[in-house]
């Protein structure tokens, strides 16, 4: 079976530099964060910018939304973490992670908002995950430290959609999964020997798909049963990209993984057959991709948004399944 995905539209105004993060929220809004230091909110239908944050002098390296799409958390290259409350329209919190408090530690690199929006996870040079308050009265206050046991740079951290676990991937390829409530390390995966720049949880929090500089994605069964028996770990490898895989996202119906690569393509992979069913050509490195969270219409395989090297946000939709 192969699918075709069509280019729908481009964002009306390009960013001045690469887009490093995109997110399509359940409120049907799209957010892009760029190396040019700006964070923009887009209307997916018109492709126009509706709101934007005043640009920082440094690029935005990480962006995360809560499960409702009402809050957007973002972090700059130097580690300034901020929270945008979309209901009030205000920046509800700012945390200068580069200011060394009594706890020491490295500035934040990747940040992830808990689905509930009450806390956020941060990782970076220390190689650990730290959990912080996302409430405006105490924004940034450290609540917990989850040590990975190693000091390799944490490139990406994300809470699972059900909020029970938080994972981190490192520059040397390890993936660590922690139980949020128990603040304990549950599993460590060493399926990659090169950096895992990003990863994605499936909507049901049972699967974790890693995106690595080794040009592959690996599907990990991370089911966490009450008896304590963990899922079987790495179950399949998705090969086909010819350069670093930079990002991944699992479709809302759990059937497909979308990946973006430094080889200037996006690929859609069928998770049951573990094969690539579509390749979309872009003009530059694809740094970030995001499915539309609304489940696809019958006969369609979904819609997604991408951002990359040329700073232009692009919308794509399925042409309908064939075969």
């Amino acid at each position, binding site marked *: 079976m192969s699918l075709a995905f069509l280019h729908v539209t481009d964002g009306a105004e390009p960013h001045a*530099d*690469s887009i*490093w993060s995109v997110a399509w929220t359940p409120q049907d809004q799209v957010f892009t964060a760029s*190396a040019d230091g700006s964070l923009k909110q887009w209307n997916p239908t018109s492709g126009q910018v509706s709101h934007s944050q005043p640009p920082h*002098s*440094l*690029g935005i*390296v990480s962006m995360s939304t809560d499960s409702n799409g009402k809050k957007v958390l973002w972090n700059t*290259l*130097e580690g300034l973490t901020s929270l945008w409350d979309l209901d009030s329209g205000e920046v509800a919190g700012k945390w200068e992670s580069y200011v060394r408090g009594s706890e020491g530690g490295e500035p934040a690199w990747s940040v992830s908002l808990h689905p509930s929006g009450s806390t956020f996870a941060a990782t970076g040079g220390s190689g650990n995950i730290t959990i912080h308050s996302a409430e405006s009265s105490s924004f940034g206050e450290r609540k917990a430290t989850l040590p990975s046991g190693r000091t390799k*740079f944490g490139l990406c951290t994300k809470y699972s959609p059900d909020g029970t676990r938080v994972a981190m991937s490192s*520059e040397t390829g390890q993936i660590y999964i922690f139980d949020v409530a128990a603040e304990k390390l549950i599993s460590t995966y060493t399926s990659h020997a090169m*950096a895992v720049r990003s990863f994605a949880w499936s909507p049901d929090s049972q699967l974790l798909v890693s995106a690595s*500089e080794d040009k592959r994605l690996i599907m990990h069964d991370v089911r966490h049963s009450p008896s304590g028996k963990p899922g079987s770990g790495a179950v399949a490898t998705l090969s086909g990209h010819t*350069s*670093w895989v930079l990002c991944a996202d699992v479709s809302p119906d759990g059937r497909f993984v979308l990946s973006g690569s*430094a080889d200037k393509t996006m690929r859609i992979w069928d998770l049951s057959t573990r094969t690539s069913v579509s390749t979309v050509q872009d003009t530059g*490195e694809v740094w970030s991709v995001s499915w539309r969270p609304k489940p696809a219409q019958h006969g369609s395989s979904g819609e997604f948004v991408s951002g990359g090297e040329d700073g232009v946000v692009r919308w794509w939709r399925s042409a309908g399944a064939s075969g």
Partner: protein
Amino acid sequence: MAYKTFPHKSRHASAKPLAQFLRVVDHIHEALSSETPTTKRDIYYKDVALFGSQSVVDRLIDDIAATMDVPRADLFVRASAKGLFCGSSLVMHLHGGDTVRGSDSEGLLIPPSEDIRRFEVDERLSWVLVVEKEAVFQTLCHLQFSRHPALPGPGLLITGKGYPDVATRQLVASLGQNLDSRIPILAVVDADPFGIDILSVYKYGSNNMSHQGDLDTPRLRWAGVMFSELASLGIEKDTLIPITKHDEKKAFSMLKRAHTPKKWRKEIQLMIYTRRKAEIEVLSASQDGHANVQTMTYLPTSAGGIFSVYKGGGSEGTDG
């Protein structure tokens, strides 16, 4: 620049620093009264046990010059020559009668500017290329790059062997001030934060010498290696070198500086984001490891075609 004060307002003993300071002043006085310039190297070697390192002497001399608000040459202390140039288009006539004639096949030491009575530049000179590293410079010299038929005319190669000394910066600055504005003066540095900092020293000057003007070359253009264009040159991402903590610190310090041009900031940010850097030699990595044919093909065509950009009037403006 603050005044030197003794005793130091610190916990450490001041006796040794005071002794070092007075010894340097002594040498300067000797040089001035005998009208015989000395070099920073000579001063250091006269009392290695007292100074401990060359950089102690260098810093003291710069501090004294700054405190007295005179160029270092006025103290009759010369830098030992470090930089090299290659190209028969440049001839330097020195005080005292000697002549340094540039060669197209080997590098010659750049004399301190206070030794140079006048320059003679061949009117056919059509480009100047400053390269960060000696190894690349030597390879290009041996290939007679300054006279290469692929280029629009004879040129001049210069290297400061890393961070350039005053003599090298003065040569580049003088060329910048005196050559016709149509002659491109270009720099090729490693695609890493230190390479870009070296570029910045040539183009804008350095902080600790800012009291001595005429060392900057604002018209100097960055011709490569651009980190962002490596993919289009067929360089595999896996051949890129991981950045170090040292690189990260330098990168952030450059991003904080107000005068760092936008284009440089983009490149530096990309290095931090990918956590990679590259050296000039990456251009020839696929072959036998020498900066050779690929480097030579790269240089005339880099920055959108160095020489055609200048012929056409350029499209990049003044920001890099």
